[in-house]
Every structure is written in C-alpha cells, then in structure tokens.
C-alpha cells in the first residue's frame, strides 16, 4: 500500500492559496471562503496550521462579512449561509471566534429559518437540508442553538427521510450521501439520532463501497473521494463504520493522491483540487490513519477544536 505524502499535500495547499491567476482559480473566486476552510482544516489535520499567517486570514474573513451578519464567498460577494459556516469554522480552527459579533452572526442565521422549520440559504429562499445542517452546526459552535426552533428544524429534517433510510434535499428528494451527512450531522448535534433507523441506513451506506474499495454517493454511481467523508462520517455517527472495509478505503484514497505534485483527486489519475484533498485527508483521519489529528464527524473540525469549544474553560 502507498503512503500519505503529507509534505507534498502541505505544499500543494499553500500553493493553491497563493495561486490566483489561472482560469480555475478565477472561476472559483466565489467560493474562496469554502476553499479556506478545506485548505486550512487539512493543514490542521496534518499538524501544519502554523504555516499560515493567522492575522492575514482573519482580516480577509472579516472583510467578507455584511451588515446583515452573513458572510460572502469572497470580498464583495453576497452573503449566504454556506460561507457563513465556513467563516465560523475557520475562526474556530484559529481559536478566534472572539472577533465575531456573535449577536450579529447568529441573528443572520436564525433569520433564515422558515415556518416549517426548514432553512433558506439566503434571502432568495432556496431551501435544502444542507442549510439545516449549516444553521445547526454554526449556531452550536457559537453556543446559540436556542435562537432557532430546534424542534421544528428536526421535524423538517425527519420529513426528508426516505424509505431506504436515507435523506434528500427536500421532502421526497432522493437519498444522496451528501444530504445524508447533513441530516445525520444535524440530528447528531441536536441529540436526535433516535429518529434514524441505524440498521437500515447503515446498510444503504455500507453498500456505497464498490469492489475496488472506494465509496460512491448513491447506487450505481462512480466512487469518489469526497464520499469518503460523507458516507464515512455518517457511518461513524450511527456506529456502523465496521460494516465497510476500512483497509480497502484507505488504499483507494491513497491511490487518488498525486504523489509528485501533491493534492488528492476524486478518482485515481484525475486532476487534484483542494476540495478532494480535504475530503481525502479527513476520510483518512476518520479511518485512524497514523499521524493525523482526529476529526469530529458531526462538526467536521478537529476533535481538539470541538473539545475546546464545549469542554474548555
């Protein structure tokens, strides 16, 4: 079996952070906040968070915040719940949550809850269980979960539960590993995992592992490293991760590395990107690959960061 080329991945991430002039970097400007979360969390898992300038990052993050309290994907971009979570997560990594006006941010998020308990992504009203997870995760980190109607938020998520045990983006939506992660994570954080049939969902999730060892996101689709996070973290939260072959998955993730230039891709020999680099490393952390910090499966942040938030004094 190959091994994790940690130094190469660190260099790759640092280079992506600086690289701003090629087409893909320009095209992805709108989600730089997500990119920051993926890159920096990966660095922390690899033990190299000190390679970046904290103050520079924090100052850029705060420039992305709007009056409403929400954050945009980059400076000048409209606020959205997606980037608000990433901003809060990055600040948590650096233990800099104190730079936030907590009232402001939490009001923005709470204001996005709808009558039926669901959450909109922004003022334009797109509803998706991803946003339910984001709201619950973010408010929980900021210790203000009580600002939303948790009971209704939970019952909306449960209304998106399908007969195969999985969850979709809205009621009636097909089960998809990404949505399942969001719903299971939200239910985990709100102490509501009893709504899940763990054996039924566990079987659906473990059948995402294909013969070659990688995981797909739903039946009859190709395996992809990002599902190493979404399927794996879901399995861990419901204590069914032993139902897949961890060894085969580790091998698949390692095979997706670009061992020369660093970075991880969706499938072996495809182009690498920060997104898949993060999910590959996070997946390896969940698989207890040696030398990596442990990551929390519900909050998608290192366990020591979460413990600091909930048990630190």
């Amino acid at each position, binding site marked *: 079996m190959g091994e994790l080329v940690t130094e190469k991945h660190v260099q790759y991430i640092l280079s992506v952070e600086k690289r701003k002039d090629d087409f893909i970097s320009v095209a992805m*400007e709108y989600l730089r906040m997500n990119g920051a979360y993926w890159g920096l969390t990966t660095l922390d898992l690899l033990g190299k968070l000190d390679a970046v300038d904290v103050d520079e990052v924090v100052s850029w993050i705060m420039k992305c915040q709007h009056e409403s309290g929400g954050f945009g994907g980059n400076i000048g971009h409209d606020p959205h719940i997606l980037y608000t979570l990433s901003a809060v997560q990055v600040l948590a990594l650096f233990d800099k949550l104190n730079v936030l006006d907590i009232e402001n941010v939490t009001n923005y998020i709470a204001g996005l809850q709808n009558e039926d308990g669901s959450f909109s992504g922004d003022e334009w009203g797109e509803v998706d269980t991803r946003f339910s997870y984001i709201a619950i995760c973010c408010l929980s980190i900021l210790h203000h979960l009580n600002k939303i109607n948790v009971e209704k938020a939970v019952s909306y998520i449960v209304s998106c539960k399908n007969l195969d045990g999985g969850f979709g983006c809205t009621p009636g939506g*097909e089960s998809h590993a990404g949505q399942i992660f969001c719903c299971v994570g939200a239910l985990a954080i709100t102490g509501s995992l009893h709504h899940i049939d763990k054996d039924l969902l566990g079987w659906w999730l473990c059948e995402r592992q294909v013969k070659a060892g990688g995981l797909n996101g739903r039946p009859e689709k190709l395996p992809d490293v990002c599902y190493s996070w979404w399927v794996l973290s879901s399995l861990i939260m419901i204590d069914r991760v032993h139902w897949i072959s961890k060894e085969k998955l580790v091998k698949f993730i390692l095979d997706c590395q670009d061992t020369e230039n660093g970075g991880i891709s969706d499938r072996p020999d495809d182009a690498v990107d920060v997104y898949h680099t993060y999910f590959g490393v996070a997946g390896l952390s969940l698989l207890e690959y040696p030398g990596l910090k442990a990551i929390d499966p519900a909050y998608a942040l290192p366990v020591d960061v979460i413990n600091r938030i909930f*048990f630190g004094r």
Partner: protein
Amino acid sequence: MHGRPRKDPKPEDAAASVAKAEKLRSLQSQFLSNHHKKIYTNEALEVSAKLLEVNPEYYTAWNFRKLAVEHRLSQSDSDPDSIKSIFSEELKVVESALKQNFKSYGAWHHRKWVLSKGHSSIDHEMRLLDRYQKLDPRNFHAWDYRRFVAALMNRSEVDELRYTTDMINSNFSNYSAWHNRSILLSNLLQRKVQGFFPKEVVLNEEYELVHQAIFTDPDDQSGWFYYLWLLDQTVKADAPLLVSSWPARDSNLIILEDQCLDDCALSPFNTFHSDSGTFPLIVYFNQAVEGVNSSTISVESVLNANSELTWKPLSTNNSPAAQVWVTYLNYPKVDVHSEAYPVEVSIGHSGGIISSSGFHYSHPSRFAFKVFARPVKTPIGHGGDIISWQDGNFALYETSPEEPNPTISLDQLNIKDDNEKTSSEWRAETIANEIALFQELLSEISCKIGKLTLARLLKARDLLLSPCANKMVYSEEVINLYSDLRTLDPPHSQFYKDEHSLTLLQQITSTRESLLRYCFLHGDGTSSFIGNSMCLRLNNLSLSRMGSIERLLWVQMLDLSHNELRSIEGLEAMQLLSCLNLSNNKLCGFTALGPLRLLKSLKVLDISCNQIGSHSIDTTRYLCSSPLCHTEEIDWGRDETVTGDVNLANYWEAFVIFRGLSLTQLDIVGNAVADEKLKSFLVKIVPTLKWLDGGELH
C-alpha cells in the same frame, strides 16, 4: 472539480489559460461593480448573462438577475406581454447556464423562482424536463424540479406513478425512478386511494416489477432497497405493538426481602431482590413510542395508585421517545401466608401512545401477573463481597422436577395483536413464493443479493410463524447463508457478522431448552450453590452485537465476556441487571457504555481487556447523551469531587458515564486508558465503589 483527467499543463495551454482567466476576471469585476452600484441597464444584464453562461456557479450573479427583474418590473407598466418577456429572458439564461453545468443549484433555483411568479408556461417546463431526464435519468435536480412543477400544475400522484413505471420499463437501472415510485406509492397506499386498496394486490404487482430488476442483473443495486421496502410492508404492521414485558404475562413474581434464600422450591427465574423497596414494571414495544403515561397505561393493583405512577422512557439520549418504558411498583408487605397480590396492566384503551412515524397504538390489550412477598429464613448474604466470574464459580442450572413454576415460557412473553386471517394468509403465501423464487435464482447463480434476500425472507418466515411454534426453524440455514456471504462479499463481512449474532441470539432465546444451556447458578466457589444468583452466560460466542433483549428482561446477572462486542446498544432495557461482565470484548470508548447509565441496579461491572483509549475516533460519541449533542450539561464548577490536576476535557467521557452509576465493583485493567490517574478519578466520582481491579478500597 470532478472527472477531469490529471495532466501536466503544456506551455501553450498555460498561456491560453492565463488569457482566458484575464477575460473572466474582467467580466467578474465588471459584474461586481454593476451589482454594487445597482446598475440594471441592458449592458449590465448582458454582462451578468455572459458570466452565468461561463460560470453558472457564480451565485451573486443569480441574485443580481433577481434584483434586476424586480427593478424592471417596477419601472415598466403592467403590460402582460412585457412582463412575460422579462421572465422568458430569465428562463433563457437558466437554460444556457444548465448547458454549461447541468447540476448548478443556482440555475435550478432561479428557474423555480421565475416559475413561482406565475408568468411562464408550465407545459413547456414538462417538455424541458423530459429532455433533461433523457440525457441523465439520475439527475436529482431534474427530479426535484419535476416534483416542483407537478405540484404547480396539480398533477396527480397516479400520473406521476405512471411516469416512474415508464422510466423503469425503459431502463430498470434507474434508482431515482424507484425512489420516486416508493414515495408516491406509499402515499397512495397510506391514503387508501381508490385502486390502491387493499394493499395486497398492489404489492404483488410491485414484487413482479422489482423481480425483473433483480433477476436481470443481480449486481445492480437499483431494485435492492425497493425490495427491502416491499418486504417490510409485507411483514410489519405500521402501528406499534407491545412485544414483551417484565414481569411477564401470567407470571408469579416472588419478591425476596433478602437476596438469598435456602428454599430450593423457588425458581431463580422469577424471584427478585433489591434494596430500594420497589420493583420495576417494564414494557417493551416493537418500535420507539411517545406518550406512555398513567393515562395511556393503567396499572391496577393494591400496591400503588395508578395515578401516582411515573413512566420513564429508556432512551440513551434523553429523548421523549423509546422502545422500552419503565415504572416502579412498591413491594407488597411481607406476609407469612404468602398472599398473592394481583397486578393488571391495561394498555391502549385510551389513545396517546404514538410511534415516531406517527402511528397510534391501536390494539387495546391487557396482561396480568401476581406478586408474592416471601420472608427469609436464614439469610446467607454475600453482602458486599467481591463477585468472581471464574468458571469455577458457575454450575449449570438444572431444573428440578418439583419446580412449581416452569422457567420462562416464552409464549407468555409475546403479547401479539390479532391479525386479520386473510392478511396473515397473504403474508405467509407471499413470503413462501418469494423464498421459492430466490432459491431458484440461487440454484442458477451464486449471488450476494440472492443469499442476503433469502436470509431475510427465512427470518421473516420464522417471525410470522413464531407466535405459535416459537421455534426458529430456519435459523441454521440463515446462519449458513451469512457465513457464505462473508466469503462472497468480504468488505461487508462485519455487517454479516452482526446479522449472524442477532440470529444466533434469536435461536438461543427461542425455546426453553436452548436457553437453559446458558443458564448457570453463581456461587462463591465453595461446594454449595444454594442461592438464587442465576447468571445467563453468553460468553465465547463471537457475538459482535446484542439482540433478543425483549426475551432477556428477567436477567439479573449477565456474562458477555470473551466476545467481539463493539456496542451494547439495547442493554438499557435490562433494568434488573445488577452484575455485568463485558471483559475481553472490543469496546472502543467510554461512550459505548452509554446504555449502562439507565441501569439503576447495576452494582458489579467488568470492562477489563477492551480497547478503551486505543482509538482516536469515537463511533458512539453522538449516541451517548452529552453536551456535544445538547442533551445535558456538565457543570464542572459545582461538583466538588472533581478536583486536582485532572484535565476535565480529557476525562469528560468517563465523567458522564460513571458519575451516575452506583457501582460497588469495577474492573477496568487491560484498557489503554486505565492508568493510575484515571483510576483515582473514578474512585472520586463513584463514591459507592468498594472493589477496583480486584483490590479493596478504603
């Protein structure tokens, strides 16, 4: 970000890329400038349209377009044609964006936003959807948009069901179509819509449909989960049912004033001792329910007034729903004449007990038992002596011929509802047909889904027959199928192992004869085994999980050592448990012991030689009640026992699990976490502890 081949950039590509990037950068910055200055001229609109054509994920541009529409609407007169053309322009922008990225959330949402304004043709949308779904029948955005449009035009569920039939008939390998079918069909069945009632006819047709999928290509998963749902619909009733109780129906419970007796005529299966002066009444349902209280369950006896009984849900995460509920009744007065105190439990006579999926407990039922109090002649108390789990301390329990009360008659434990005769005939026939079909499939090809489905069908058959026969006829065959599957499908080996453990436990607890092989008397190692300490020894069985707990509610002493248990999910129901041996298993963290917090009688616990402290990832972290999942708070500050140089953040799991237990004996050696620091921490938070790792505490 997906599916692009990895290649080193060639120099000519690099130059082209930089030029392309410059163009896009200038377009994006022009756009942002217009957006911030709120410029909605035709030029500005052109810029945004160009941008979205090239980069449809640039979400701020979609916001801009909505603002531009609102602006133009406010400027123009309310001429319907110009309004229509404003919106149709938006739809064109969406279409060109979708050409670039079929799966753009922003594009699809913009389309929904436009349609919801009500100025666009819905028929056109359906035609568009047909086109998209031909290109990619698994695009969930398209399916989601289809649901949106169908709702807008009030399309019937029957019509939409027909659409899924068409999709499946043209290509059965379409999980999205099967999924949509399941939602539509379950709604139609539940509402008993004309043509979909009775459900038996409908389900028969569905079995035929899904057979085609599975038998044509057994490796294609598209029909697997639909089949499992059909099986579920066939075998299970929606409404919650009472499955077992303790004390059991028609049993005679003997309360002992002291834990020892020298009267061999009493069976250890139905005697009970506790210091609390109360005994539990446990009800076990087939699924999690809410609303169990003294209005929805009435307990008639002289021991307690029904209204003063509080029912508690045995949920490991403090939720109001649970599969198992408990209340406590007072001991009867000790009477030399051994008077019997009858207790009658009525459940479901008034509504209110409701499952998590919204179904009411609908079959009123009653069960009764008798309670006796026995005085003790000469107590031979162990008191606070150390309990040893060594083999020499156990002797196989032999039923004596004079035993007045047979050991657990499992018929008594099962409280069933009365199924309609036709319904249960159809069930039996359907299962029999399916078994025959899958046996035929397996005679042709040895396939995983064939074996797994057959195992499920055989178990279902046993479940249907069991109220009468109580034997697990097929369990050997099922166990063999799981062994085959472990070889056929190695990555999922532990899944089949868990299923194997469940089946094995069902087999063991299915008859009196099989259960007795595992029942032992526990003594202090001397020659006499007088005493009512009955232990269920399920050690060395390679069990990876627990099951059949509804049949084990009577257990007070349980030996699960030398197995492969990673979790003890379900053990919270064993309210009588006072001694538990979990040594030499695969417990990976303290949070896995969550269920023990609900065992108020637990005194002796052995968790030695597990893997607590050897793992960086905790798989029961969110299944255990804690501040992380907002089900309880830890107030470190006020707790005076928690002092010293202990970093509480490192010990929170141990704190949460152990501080509520009143253990007298604990064994923890052989776990990486069990150093001296932890041990002295545990001694502080468990003041009742007398024995730790075999050593007496002072």
